[in-house]
């Protein structure tokens, strides 16, 4: 649900407008925005700015929607933060990962590699479709 539609429903809930007025406003909104919410295919070409995670699911017979938008700049900053982790902490993390059956050596992960990973995220799209849930991860 987009911001404007939510505002209309809020005004209706607050009793500021009648149900008919809300219906007219929503219809006008739909006329102005004939296209659906932007998905991975609808993204215009260019530098992506955000990582989006959209989950549509049915939980307890109620539709559930999770919509997360994270600026890619924040991911880049997070990568730089990861580079500050002291080596002894990485050693401990490696040992725990090994114990859990993940033989990943975090000390071999260089910040430049992680930055390159974030840089190429805009070319990535993940879609998981299940009968009762749909997950989309993409950049826009």
């Amino acid at each position, binding site marked *: 649900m987009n911001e404007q539609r939510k505002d209309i429903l809020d005004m209706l*809930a607050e009793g500021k407008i009648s149900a008919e007025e809300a219906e007219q406003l929503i219809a006008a909104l739909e006329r102005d925005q004939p296209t659906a919410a932007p998905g991975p295919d609808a993204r215009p070409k260019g530098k992506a700015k955000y990582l989006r995670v959209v989950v549509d699911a049915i939980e307890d017979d*109620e*539709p*559930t929607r999770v*919509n*997360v938008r994270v*600026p890619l700049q924040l991911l880049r900053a997070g990568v730089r933060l990861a*580079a*500050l982790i*002291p080596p002894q902490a990485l050693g401990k993390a490696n040992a725990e990962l090994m114990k859990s059956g993940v033989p990943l050596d975090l000390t071999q992960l260089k910040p430049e590699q992680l930055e390159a990973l974030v840089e190429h995220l805009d070319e990535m799209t993940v879609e998981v479709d299940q009968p009762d849930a749909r997950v989309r991860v993409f950049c826009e």
Partner: protein
Amino acid sequence: MPQSLTVRVRRPDGRPIRIWVPVLPVVLVFLPVVVLAVLVGAVACLVYHVSVVRALATGWRLVAALPGTRFDLEQGRTAVLVSIR
């Protein structure tokens, strides 16, 4: 740097709660706590042999990158929106 934090909650009965937090005034009010937290962070950096300047720069970069972050959850008639601008 983030300018405002908006939290919107729509309760199951349909009544909305809106909270708008202007970041800068709140930071100014809590400045003593912020300074204390930075000092504690600096000491932790020294203990763990991490460059304080680099840590501060990275922390600032992280805060500066927050605008545009948005978390939106809807379940039935309940909804929560957290938006940083």
